[in-house]
């Protein structure tokens, strides 16, 4: 076993565009996803800023009503299907899952590349509506029938894009499940697997078993637009509410596709920066499975006012509350992990703490939406918009940024400026809450969502919210700028293990060699977070 490695790292070796876009190396594919994701995220975020500008004051400011409607739809489609659903699994899952399991790639490397290509094709389809056809869909990302069947905008293409993107998601999930079953290094049993891998495992099952349903549902919308017979048209015996059922059978579980990987990230960050074993490993691991499982049965909470039967509302509401419990278990265990640790405060930890705080707000607002009486009032208001931005952006988005800062030195073997990173974090945190908290207030006051224009009484919260979006924008630009600067200019070599982490990726070089490891990875004695018996890592 050589101590000094002669392996090329994955960034060296073959150069040139084609060596990347046809690479079957999971690390390169992870980065391909990252670059694509960030691009789409910036498009989505710019649309978000535009919406906020329009909503700064009541009345028409800079957009037409129709344009606004198309913008929020595209914003939703991009953010959901192009950014947040793939985000953590496709980027960090791809890059780190095999390394954390002590293997050299996923089970089906070529399938992995295919997933990326499908993703890109889907993305191009979604964005093509900006240029071709009759403009982007104006239906909201939910594509509710019958409006989505009637409107003249290019719904067909957007829907097909979502369909194609679903395939990519399914294939990634499939690949991860098989990888986790087949490629763990000997000695790493399921219960010695890092929690990030557990989270991805649960996520992959949702991707695999929920996505087909939306696939077929969206195909029905496409068929409707071609044959126009009215599959959801009551006059021939159909039912528009059935569309909603099918849509949410997928899309509720999908919110856990967004959330679970983020939980996984937090479960990695906390033990590393507290330098101690995680509190309640099994509870955290199994609660992921519990969330995934229960999450399948609560889709009806998006339809409390749709005219569902009373029994339906009762059952879905009670099940919705049940899903809060495994999440609560996670939060408590995370906080307990900080107890008697030896905490090193670095940028990634700040993101993790902000995650917990913001996700709690998101989760608690979710409870208000899950209760029948309050949801009747709050459904389809800005309260819901506030809720999901808190969980998706304040939760998953922040976890994504945290992961980016955590693994940045590992991925590129460089280090960013910590001071700037912390400043950017502060701006993001303040901006985020200024942007979204007033939305909760506006929602309580009764401002419906998907509103191009609003009554004067909602002016104040909207104004504050728009100010917040500017702070957030500055923070985001600063954060990205800092990382990009570090990528090009940083001279600092962080070494193998800058944070004192324990999972296997910290035992290899930064950046990792093509084969992932330059020496045999060594498992800690008692489980993945056994900081007491941490293997010594020589440079």
């Amino acid at each position, binding site marked *: 076993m050589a101590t000094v490695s002669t392996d090329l790292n994955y960034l060296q070796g073959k150069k040139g565009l084609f060596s990347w876009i046809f690479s079957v190396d999971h690390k390169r594919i992870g980065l391909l996803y990252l670059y694509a994701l960030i691009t789409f995220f910036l498009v989505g975020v710019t649309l978000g800023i535009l919406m906020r500008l329009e909503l700064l004051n009541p009345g028409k400011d800079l957009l037409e009503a129709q344009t606004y409607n198309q913008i929020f739809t595209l914003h939703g489609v991009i953010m959901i299907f192009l950014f947040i659903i793939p985000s953590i699994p496709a980027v960090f899952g791809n890059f780190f899952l095999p390394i954390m399991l002590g293997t050299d*790639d996923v089970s089906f490397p070529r399938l992995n590349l295919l997933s990326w290509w499908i993703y890109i094709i889907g993305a191009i389809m979604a964005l093509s509506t900006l240029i071709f056809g009759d403009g982007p869909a104006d239906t909201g990302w939910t594509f509710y029938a019958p409006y989505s069947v009637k409107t003249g905008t290019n719904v067909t293409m957007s829907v097909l894009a979502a369909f194609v993107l679903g395939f990519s998601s399914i294939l990634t999930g499939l690949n991860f499940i*098989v990888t986790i079953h087949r490629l763990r290094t000997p000695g790493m049993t399921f219960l010695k697997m890092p929690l990030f891998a557990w989270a991805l495992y649960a996520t992959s099952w949702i991707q695999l078993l929920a996505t087909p349903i939306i696939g077929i549902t969206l195909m029905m919308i496409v068929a409707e637009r071609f044959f126009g017979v009215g599959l959801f048209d009551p006059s021939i015996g159909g039912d528009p509410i059935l569309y909603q059922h099918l849509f949410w059978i997928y899309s509720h579980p999908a919110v856990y596709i967004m959330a679970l990987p983020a939980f996984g990230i937090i479960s990695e960050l906390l033990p590393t920066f507290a330098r101690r074993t995680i509190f309640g490993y099994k509870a955290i691991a199994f609660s992921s499975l519990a969330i995934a499982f229960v999450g399948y049965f609560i889709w009806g909470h998006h339809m409390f006012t749709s005219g569902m039967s009373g029994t339906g509302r009762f059952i879905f509401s009670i099940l919705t509350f049940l899903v809060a419990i495994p999440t609560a278990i996670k939060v408590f265990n995370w906080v307990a992990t900080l107890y008697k640790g030896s905490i090193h405060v670095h940028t990634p930890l700040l993101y993790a703490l902000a995650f917990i705080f913001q996700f709690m707000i998101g989760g608690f607002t979710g409870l208000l939406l899950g209760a029948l009486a309050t949801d009747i009032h709050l459904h389809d208001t800005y309260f819901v918009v506030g809720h999901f931005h808190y969980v998706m952006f304040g939760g998953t988005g922040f976890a994504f940024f945290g992961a980016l800062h955590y693994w940045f030195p590992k991925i590129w073997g460089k280090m960013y400026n910590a001071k700037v990173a912390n400043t950017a974090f502060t701006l993001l945190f303040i901006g985020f809450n200024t942007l979204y908290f007033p939305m909760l207030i506006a929602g309580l006051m009764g401002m419906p969502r998907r509103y191009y224009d609003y009554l004067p009484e909602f002016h104040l919260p909207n104004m504050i919210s728009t100010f917040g979006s500017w702070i957030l924008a500055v923070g985001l630009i600063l954060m990205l700028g800092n990382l990009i600067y570090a990528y090009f200019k940083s001279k600092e070599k962080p070494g193998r293990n800058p944070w004192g982490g324990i999972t296997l990726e910290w035992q290899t070089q930064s950046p990792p060699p093509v084969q992932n490891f330059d020496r045999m990875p060594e498992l800690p004695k008692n489980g993945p977070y056994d900081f007491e018996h941490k293997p010594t890592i020589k440079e």
Partner: protein
Amino acid sequence: MEHASGFVLPNSGHNRDAEASKMGMWLFLFTELLLFGGLFIVYMVYRMINHEAFLLSSFELDVTMGTINTVVLLVSSMTIAMSITAIQKGNIKLSVNLLYATLAAAIIFMVIKYFEWSSKIHHGLFPGMDYYESLPKGEGLFFYLYFFMTGLHALHIIIGAVIIGVVIYRTKKGLVTSEKYTLTENAGLYWHLVDLIWIYLFPLFYLIH
């Protein structure tokens, strides 16, 4: 894969792992099941709210043809299962012939389906046609779903047939052997899935009297 510094990771994504391929195939089958599952839910709900209409419409379908097709698919399921046995025992020729038999069954199925569909279309029952538009409430949905679901199923038959073609080709070239027959196994799994779905489609459309 061997590493530059001279050690081999015990489990590797670049190694041949027959079990992994099979597991991947099973997982893929699950997604297919749920794809049809969505349609079955639509079918169930619409049947529930248009009970009589669905009943009436189902009389329009030809039970004899449906039954023949069921038998054809079941036989083909057996032939492909036997083909796996053959390859496992090293009997390449028999394996290929059994695959041909399966392929033949696929073609027979499609031919029968063609006649069924064309007689329906002849009656104007295809969504969008004049007669279809004039159907009473609920009956249109039945035929819509009939075409959508059997159509999707037929698409799977075609894909399955292509896959079987590939297996035949590769077996003949000696790429599939009694040691390495994952391809045949996976093709078999896929083909059985097509059969499974038909097993439900058949009673739901033809037999609900």
